[in-house]
């Protein structure tokens, strides 16, 4: 039977990362993936990633996917696509369906990196055509270039629900509402804020009463729920929609491991049924490792580090590196992973209601309840200051592991410090040159360049803009507040789309000066 040092199942962020590290250390590696394109979910992730440089921050997911593929290729990893692993048998035998036949392979070691599957919720009408998973929406629009629908209601305010809502708007869909039964927004505040300011209303403590339609979705009714998740009569709201998108969490796709006889556990902190494993992915079966979401739901950035760890651990298991080298290398990766697992959204904080930032500043209640920071709350955060001339206004109000803005500003206007979860500070006295790099590099699209007083009663606000059509200079329209409501007249004074901005255009609008700290989005009329 054909044998490899290492067989990896799944060519997503963790599988590719594992393959690269293992192959670099001399292992003969093959990665099987059932999809036509490699990269797992990365190729549907069109937003810029969080983290720091070592986590490939501010690079868009699909670009990271391509980078990983190139690295895998360079390292000599064999990536086999359209190859469905149909079973993991005893003696580390992998059976793969490829084209019109099945093939049997043995691995001296195996890494399972199969990722996660979407969770679902039920409501009357949930089987109607038009009710789709958020992943389905991403697949349709970002891989196949087809609109999932025209008018969409999103259920779920976690990062997936927020990111996919934004993506839906980017390809021209109207998101009529973002709904979550939970009383607070579950995902990053910055993701919520960039959706809210385009005018999408958030309905927290609400859920779907029913999907309407005979042959397919024609509408949806939601209602408010009480603390026991029971509907409150009289709070029903109806929307005409053709699509209902479900983003209610992920579960590890661990069936292959269970099939192979791995010891499993149900661990709600990891998202469901997971193999029992150590921090480097070693399972109860000698030589069988896991990496990425299959061993616990986290972000793609963490999955890449977990993959690297498992790849290195497999190299040591097979004698390609010494135990002492293993320990050194893993220690470095431990630090990198630890950096990502800090902050308000760290796995250890799941389920906790956090009231204050690490700096002791009260978290914006509006952000958690409605998806945006209220005007009266914003100025308590250290990135938001008033001063003369153009200066960055950093509306980053939660501790998340991310620091590209600090590196982006060559003038030292933005400071985060060594701890990448700290809130960015607008540095007093630093000299902003209006280059716009901070705006374009902020993965959360939370940085604005503001000139509060241009001397003629107006102010200018430069904001990140990733929509089409791109307004041109002179376009007249409206300024929208953080809540997405029209608050003033606005006129586009410049639109910059530099290569260094990586598809984030910088739109500068002129607004009456009293709206300098309020207007955060532009809408042509």
């Amino acid at each position, binding site marked *: 039977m054909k044998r490899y040092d290492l067989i990896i199942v799944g060519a997503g962020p963790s599988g590719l990362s594992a393959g690269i590290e293992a192959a670099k250390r001399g292992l003969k590696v093959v990665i099987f993936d059932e999809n036509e394109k490699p990269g797992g979910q990365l190729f549907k992730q069109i937003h810029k990633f969080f983290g720091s440089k070592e986590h490939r921050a501010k690079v868009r997911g699909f670009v990271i996917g391509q980078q990983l593929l190139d690295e895998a290729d360079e390292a000599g990893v064999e990536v086999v696509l359209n190859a469905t692993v149909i079973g993991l048998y005893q003696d580390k035998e992998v059976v793969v369906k490829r084209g019109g036949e099945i093939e049997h392979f043995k691995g001296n070691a195996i890494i399972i990196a199969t990722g996660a599957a979407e969770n679902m919720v039920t409501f009357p009408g949930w089987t109607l*055509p038009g009710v789709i998973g958020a992943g*389905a929406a991403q697949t349709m629009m970002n891989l196949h270039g087809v609109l999932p629908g025209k008018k969409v209601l999103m259920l779920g305010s976690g990062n997936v629900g927020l990111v996919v809502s934004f993506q839906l708007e980017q390809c021209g869909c109207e998101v009529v509402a973002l709904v979550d039964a939970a009383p607070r927004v579950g995902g990053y505040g910055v993701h919520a804020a960039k959706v809210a300011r385009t005018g999408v209303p958030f309905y927290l403590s609400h859920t779907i009463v029913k999907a309407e339609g005979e042959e397919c979705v024609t509408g949806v009714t939601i209602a408010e729920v009480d603390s026991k998740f029971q509907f409150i009569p009289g709070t029903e709201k109806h929307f005409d929609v053709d699509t209902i998108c479900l983003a209610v969490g992920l579960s590890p796709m661990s069936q292959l491991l269970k099939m192979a006889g791995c010891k499993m556990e149900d661990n709600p902190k990891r998202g469901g049924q997971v193999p029992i494993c150590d921090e480097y992915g070693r399972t109860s079966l000698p030589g069988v490792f896991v990496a990425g979401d299959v061993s616990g739901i986290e972000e793609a950035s963490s999955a890449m580090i977990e993959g690297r760890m498992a790849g290195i651990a497999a190299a040591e298991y097979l004698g390609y590196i010494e135990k002492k080298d293993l320990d050194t290398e893993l220690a470095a990766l431990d630090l990198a992973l630890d950096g990502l697992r800090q902050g308000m959204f760290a796995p250890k904080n799941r389920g906790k209601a956090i009231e204050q930032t690490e700096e002791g500043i009260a978290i914006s209640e509006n952000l958690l309840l409605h998806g945006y920071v209220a005007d009266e709350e914003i100025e308590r955060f250290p990135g938001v200051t008033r001063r003369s001339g153009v200066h960055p206004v950093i509306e980053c109000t939660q501790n998340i592991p991310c620091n590209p803005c600090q590196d982006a500003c060559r003038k030292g206007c933005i400071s985060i410090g060594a701890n990448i979860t700290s809130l960015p500070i607008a540095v007093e006295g630093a000299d902003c040159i209006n280059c716009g790099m901070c705006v374009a590099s902020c993965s959360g699209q939370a940085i604005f360049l503001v000139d509060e007083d241009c001397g003629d009663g107006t102010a200018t606000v430069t904001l990140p803009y990733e929509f089409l059509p791109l307004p041109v200079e002179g376009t007249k329209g409206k300024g929208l507040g953080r809540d997405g409501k029209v608050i003033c007249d606005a006129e586009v004074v410049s639109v910059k789309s530099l290569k260094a901005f990586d598809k984030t255009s910088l739109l500068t609008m002129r607004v009456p000066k009293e709206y300098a700290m309020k207007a955060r989005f532009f809408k042509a009329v």
Partner: protein
Amino acid sequence: MSERIKEHPVLGVQEKGELVKFTFDGKEIEGYEGEPIAAALKAAGVMVHRYTQKEHKPRGIFCAIGRCTDCVMVVNGEPNVRTCITPLAAGMDVRTQYGVSDQPFDEQ
């Protein structure tokens, strides 16, 4: 109904295969070769892929990645084809699936 994204602010203009003809329930429509059958149908505004065996309820795309199997149809005479991961080819005969057949229930 639904349509294609002509240009995307981040992804630009997506590369597609050749525009080919295929039939849906005997009616000729167009799609791009190599894209999933389901994508071509969605772009053409088709929502219902099948009706269920027991309750005769409509189903369409749900997961779009070949897991949920809700989008199965009768393709070139073969039932239960997952259209969301089966590439479109010129001249394909794609039919609504009723239970496991391409015949409506009252004709089965």
